[in-house]
Structure formats: C-alpha cells, structure tokens
C-alpha cells in the first residue's frame, strides 16, 4: 500500500473510532467533566439559579469552615456513617462468606437468602425498617424486650439514629458476601491442606491464610464501600428528614436542601467540592487498581 493511501486508510479508521465512541465523549464532557469544572467555578460564587452567578472568591469556604457549624456536623455524621457501615459490612460480610464457603451443598440456598435484600427497592425497604424501628411497637424493641432490654428510641434518638441507619444498611450485605465468596474460591486449597498438616487450627487458617490472601478484595470493598456510603441520602430524606437534632443530616442531604430548597447553589457547590476533594484520593486508588487490569 503506498504511503499516502495508507495514511488515509488509518485516518478513516480513526474517524470510525471516534464515531463509535461519540456518545460517550458527549456524555463524558456534558455530564461528568463539564459539571466538575462548573462545580468548582460555582463554589466561588453566590448563585440563586436565576440571576447570573456573582464572584465572591473564597467567601463560601470561609463561611463553611468558620461560621456554619451545621456543615461540620454534617461532615461528621457522614464520616460516622461511612466508617461505621463499611467496617461492619466488611467484617460481617467476610465472616458470613467464610461460613458459606464451608456450607457445601447448602451454600446455594443460604446465598440466595443473604443476597435477596440487595435487589429490593430502596424506598419500600426504608418504610419497612421505619416499622421495625418503632420504639414501642416495633419488632426490634419487642424482641429486645424478651431479654428485659429496654430498646432505644432508634430513629427518634440523636444517639441511635445513625446506628439504626447503619443496622439497616447491613441488610444489604449480600453484595459484599458474593464478592468475598468469589475471592475465597480463588484461594488454592493446597495452602490450607499444607497448613493443616502442620497442625494449624481453623482460626489460625483464617488469620494466616484467608485474610492475607483476600487482602486485595477486602481493600477494594472498603474503598468502594466508603465512596458509596458517602452518598447516603434517601435514608435520611425519607426516614428522618435529617433529624433528630441534625443527627442524620448527611452531606448530600445538606447539599440537596441548600441547592434545591434554599437555592443557594454557590454555597451548596462549595460543600460538594469539599466532599469531592476529601474523596478523590479514594478514587485515585481505585483508578490504579483498575488501570492495572485494563492493560492494552
């Protein structure tokens, strides 16, 4: 093929490549990259959604960190939920996955049961748990009553509202269990056999083989779990409205109320940018994990 036509051949190929990728290039620019830039810009302005945004420099950030205690409170609430739910989910998920992995021919049935809540729609699930958490008539406190325990007020208590939402999130642990199960099945059984010959007991096997071999999967689940949990919104919006005493005002609920109820879009953008900057290291970590397996 002569040089000239070869080049035009590849040029044509390139055009086809862009054409196939076009929907995503548009989506990436309009719905992801553009909005990120716009959020940074808006965070330096005051903007009511109607009149043009007015530049005010770092004022929003100054207010956030020095004059608005509700922001730091929301940030604290969000971290509480993120770390509480992720820690318990990963721990309990790992334990249940290890048990399931030993359940032989019954594994399928148990897995079906544990995963079922994952597919249930969020809003009905929240209504259900509002019933279960009812302080006087709810199933949970009536159950605790059997043992003479006077159950807490759950969603009506500033102390117990976040633990209640975390407890509810544990119902959706099936996803993590399934991921851990896949990881467990990838551990060569010879490792266990060799250690057992050396006289290791089950608990030693768990700590010396299972946990180290699963470390990448555990790590991955923690990081994705934290990013996912940072977006907690509907739970508070539907079950508590952010209360009592702002104890369940999470960052996303605050952004939603500020941006779409009080139309303080500049200020709300500043909050979203702060949250973004806090979480970006986690995103970078995940990017590295994925890039490794996507080698060209």
């Amino acid at each position, binding site marked *: 093929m002569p040089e000239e036509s070869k080049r035009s051949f*590849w040029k044509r190929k*390139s055009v*086809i*490549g862009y054409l*196939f*990728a076009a*929907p*995503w*290039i548009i*989506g*990436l620019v309009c*719905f992801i990259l553009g*909005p*990120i830039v*716009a*959020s940074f810009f*808006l965070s330096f302005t005051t903007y009511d959604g109607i009149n043009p945004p007015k530049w005010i420099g770092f004022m929003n950030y100054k207010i956030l960190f020095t004059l608005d205690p509700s922001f730091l409170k929301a940030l604290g609430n969000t971290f509480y939920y993120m770390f509480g739910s992720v820690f318990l989910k990963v721990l309990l998920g790992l334990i249940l996955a290890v048990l399931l992995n030993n*359940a032989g021919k019954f594994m399928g049935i148990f897995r079906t049961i544990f*995963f079922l*809540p*994952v*597919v*249930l*729609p*969020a809003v009905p699930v929240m209504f*259900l748990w509002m*019933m*279960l958490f*009812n302080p*006087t008539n709810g*199933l949970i406190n*009536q159950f605790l009553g059997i043992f003479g325990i006077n159950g807490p007020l759950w969603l009506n208590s500033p102390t117990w509202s976040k633990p209640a939402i975390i407890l509810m999130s544990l*119902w959706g642990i099936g996803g*993590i269990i399934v991921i851990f199960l*896949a990881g467990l099945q990838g551990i060569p059984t010879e490792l266990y056999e060799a250690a057992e010959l050396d006289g290791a007991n089950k608990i030693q096997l768990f700590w010396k083989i299972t946990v180290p071999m699963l470390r990448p999967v555990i790590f991955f689940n923690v990081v*994705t779990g934290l*990013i996912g949990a*940072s*977006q907690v*919104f*509907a739970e508070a*919006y*539907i079950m508590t409205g952010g209360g009592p005493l702002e104890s369940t005002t999470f960052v996303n609920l605050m*952004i939603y109320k500020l*941006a*779409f109820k009080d139309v303080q*879009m500049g200020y*709300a*953008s500043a*909050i*979203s940018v702060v*949250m*973004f900057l806090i979480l970006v290291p986690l*995103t970078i970590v*995940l990017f590295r*994990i*994925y890039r490794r*397996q*996507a080698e*060209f």
Partner: protein
Amino acid sequence: MRSQKKMRLIREIILYSVLTLFSVIFLVPLFWMISTSLKPESQVMTVPVQWLPKPPQWRNYIDAVKAFPFFRYFWNTSFLAILNVVGTLFSASLVAYSFSKLRWKGRNQLFYITIATMFIPSQVLIIPTYLIFSKLGWINTYLPLVVPAFCGGGAFNIFLLRQFFVSIPDELLEAARIDGASEFRIYSQIVLPLSKPVLFTVSIFTLLFSWNDFFGPLLYLHDPSKWTLAVGLRSFQQQYTTTWNLLMAASTLTALPLIIIYFIFQKSITSGFALSGSGK
C-alpha cells in the same frame, strides 16, 4: 479417630446453626413486610407481636392500588427502566467496541479517563447537571433520566463490556474485514452475538438501578402524573401516615417484579455482582 469425627460433627452443627440463625434474621423483615400487608389495621404494630394476619385481608392490595395511581407509576417506572436498558445496551456496547477493537488517536488516554470516572464522588455533579437540564428546559420531563443512558450508559458498563470484548480474538474480526464487512456490521453481527452473557448482566443491573432510583425522579419530576413508584410511594406514605398495612401492600407490589427477576436470573445476577465488584 472417633473423637475427630465427633469434632467434625460438632463443627458442622455450629456452622449450620449460625447460618440458619442469620438466614432467619435476614428473612424476618421481608416476612414482616408481607405479613403486615395482609393484616387488618387493628393487628398492625400490636404488642405483643401478631405474627400472622388473622384472617389474611387480601383486600388491602386492592385498597392500596386504589389509594394512589399505582398502575400509572408502575408503567412510568417500567417505561423508564426499559428506555435505560435499551440506551445503555446500545451506546455502552458501541463505545466499548471502539475502546477494544478500533484504533484511534487518544483512545487509551480517553479510556483511562473513563476508568477514573467510574468512582467519581457524584456529589460534585449534581448541581451543574441539574442546571444543564434546567437550561435545556428538560425539568419535569423524562429526558434527564433517559438521555444519559444513551450517552455511553455510564463508565462502569463501558468498562465491563470492554473487558469482555478484549477477550474476543482479533483474527475473527480481521477475517470479516478482509471480506469487506463494515465495522458496524462486525460489531452487530459478530461481537454482539458473542457477548450475550455480559450484555445480559449489564441489562439486569441497569434495570435494577433504574427501578430503584429515587434521587433522579425526586429531582427532575414535579408533575405527580409523571412520577415513578419510588417517588409515588413516598407521597403515598406522607398522605397515609398510619395505614402501614396499605403502605406495605404497595411496597410489596413495588418489590415483587424485582423479586421475580431475582429468582429467575439469580445466577447471572450474583455472578455479575461478583465479577463487577472484585476489582479483578
């Protein structure tokens, strides 16, 4: 030897008791939802616990779907879910084909950006995206909930499909190219038919996600006749704060399609979940 056997038996008993205990804990809430949905109002939230409705009041389901426009919302939700599945399948697979089987300048860099956006903390996107749709005059229409699906269908789906397409041998495509087949033809007649399992996984996840979405419809749909089940249920709950039996009947009906889908396609759902979540 005998004591070893005994030890094993004890271990199995403990193992299965713990698993059974957790199964019961996992199933009780669901049981409670269905049981409450069939109770007369006087048996809801009683002390002591009334486990089974006496007698089951099937009329609750009729009352629930009459108390709010259930079928309208059901249709709206299904309509949105179907459009999201169609849009995602079509656009994500086109883009994934481009990332895996076509060569063009900037391809790898763009794919890296795509990976980086898979886990972007989405808080930062909400306000500007809303403003874009608002400037386009799309508020209170289905467009904000549908158009993004046709624009690549999300980084994660593109990634999932791309990883699968990479495993399809290039020789297969080269042969077709020599025969003069166009790229679109190769994509639609060779690559897509070979990728049915992963396309199916993407469809199910998109369906689940769309059906369960609360934030999108809450933000963009103001006209009650356009609402989805998630938003409609929320307003139902605010109007009938004490009729838990009807609310649970409506909730059960909302969850039912997903439960049925889960039991039919359980294998591909759980294995798809394991695949997408392991970082492998």
